[in-house]
């Protein structure tokens, strides 16, 4: 490395660092997009939604009437799984895990994947009733072997839809107090 290139190295590094910071900010790398934790019970959305054609609202019963989509009670699961024990050995193990929770009278401690910041009010029902499909935000959940966070869930991602730049286009109010109050 000659003298000249050594002189250029310092500003070069600074530039690269600045560029990387900016790119990461824009790409949403600061979100936990792609996060896919292993759940206490390996629930298969593929089986329930894709194969059995269950409606999302069967389990997430409040998604069309509350801010909160609702999480199925263990009792809801056991409504079927007292009868359905699974066919594949791998699935049988998981259903037994579920039954174990039920027998202990403990709820399943699911690990949360999709989490908006605390100060954002996200009314599920407004979105669901406006025809925004679950997949728009949660990705092709019916094909996910293990659920992961499909979208960045950062503010720019929200805004894109609200100002009608999504496909299919939706439009919604986009002043701050729509979500932040």
């Amino acid at each position: 490395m000659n003298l000249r290139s050594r002189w250029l190295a310092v500003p070069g590094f600074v530039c690269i660092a600045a560029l990387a910071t900016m790119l990461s900010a824009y790409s949403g790398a600061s979100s936990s997009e792609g996060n896919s934790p292993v759940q206490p019970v390996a629930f298969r959305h593929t089986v329930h939604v894709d194969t059995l054609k269950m409606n999302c609202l069967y389990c997430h019963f409040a998604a069309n009437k509350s801010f909160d989509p609702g999480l199925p009670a263990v009792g809801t699961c056991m409504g079927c799984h007292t009868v359905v024990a699974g066919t594949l050995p791998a699935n049988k193990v998981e259903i037994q895990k579920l039954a174990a929770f039920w027998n202990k009278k403990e709820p399943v401690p699911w690990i949360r994947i999709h989490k908006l910041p605390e100060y954002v009010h996200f009314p599920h029902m407004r979105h669901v009733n406006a025809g925004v499909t679950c997949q728009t935000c949660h990705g092709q959940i019916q094909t996910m072997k293990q659920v992961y966070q499909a979208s960045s869930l950062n503010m720019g991602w929200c805004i894109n839809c609200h100002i009608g730049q999504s496909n299919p286009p939706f439009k919604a109010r986009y002043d701050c107090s729509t979500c932040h109050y």
Partner: protein
Amino acid sequence: MRGVIGAFHELDAAVSAIEALKEGGVGAIRVYTPTPRHELEEAIGAPPSSVRRYTLIGGLLGVTFGFWIAIWTSDYWPLVVGGKPIASWVPYTIFGFEVMVLVGALSTVVGLFINSRIPRLTMMVGYDPRFSHGDYGVWVECPPEKAKTAEGLLREHGAVEVRLER
């Protein structure tokens, strides 16, 4: 770079040497001086510095950017504050001005750097530390065959030391 460097204790000696060298057409002259003196400047007779062009362009770029960033960002997500127009040019002149000063001044410095060829990484031929303290140096770039003439002229006008660089 080849040439002759002569060191002078006295200012008038250096001035007369420069004038003599120019008259003799020995070669390109470069003067080292611990402080800028009008006498030397006039003797060399160089054209005005082109730093001013950098200043002008920088200033214009700055004022444009200042107004643009303020207006474009306000308009990008229009929110009314205090019943004021969304892009209100009156307060935005502050950005025009400040960014003009910032970019204009920085590009002036860039102009200085480019024109003066600094930062310089290598030693300059003929330079001697004494030139930053008190002595004047007159460097003539010339082929070896003209070196004798140059040396003669320098010594004649009072150079305390003359050195050939090759």
